[in-house]
């Protein structure tokens, strides 16, 4: 669903504690797809739709890189919070 300019936008940046391999990418995509908001992840200048597992894996994001999680839409804040929790649970989120 395209987000209008009036819908909330939320963005958080974290440092990856591990490489973004297939399983964490899958967990991230499954979590992101449950939200109405558009959700994206950006690493090293490349942005992927967080709801696309192949897109997230295609980022090739590695430990130590900054990962930007951004959402736009009615449930943007919850979406970003859940994505961060999923990455944390997968031990992917450093400080």
């Amino acid at each position, binding site marked *: 669903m395209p987000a209008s300019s009036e819908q909330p936008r939320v963005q958080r940046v974290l440092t990856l504690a591990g490489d973004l391999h*297939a*399983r964490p990418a*899958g*967990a991230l995509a*499954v979590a992101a*797809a*449950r939200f109405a908001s558009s959700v994206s992840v950006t690493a090293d200048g490349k942005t992927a739709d967080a*709801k*696309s597992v192949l*897109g997230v894996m295609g980022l090739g994001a590695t430990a130590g890189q900054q990962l930007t999680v951004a959402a736009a839409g009615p449930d943007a804040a919850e979406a970003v919070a859940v994505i961060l929790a999923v990455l944390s649970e997968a031990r992917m989120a450093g400080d």
Partner: protein
Amino acid sequence: MSGAVVGIVLVSHSAELAAGAADLAAQVSGGTVRIVAAGGTDDGALGTSAAKVELGLSEADSGAGVVVLPDLGSAVLTVRAVLTDRPGGRVVLVDAPFVEGAVAATVTAAAGGDLQAVAVAAAEARHARKL
């Protein structure tokens, strides 16, 4: 969203290839989707089996429909023959890269996507770049 999750059937000429792709897709998606490997002939040789596809469709369907992914074009013949004898089922045969399609479809199903969304996710896997 209903409780039923779209199922996936992977039809390959190789039993090992189908089983490996199913295992990979299940692990990436968290193991909540019925993903059935239908690979090899009835006697375990390279080829496809209408009986295995038929059984796979039954095992994968929990009420939300099934997406079927063939590995190569000739698997399509077997799937089509089975679907001709099995009218009315909510089954979609999708033209997609086998591994990427299996992973994308299973993740979308795990997230609660409906039959159409899962089929689209598999088909769009064709455009995903690895590099």
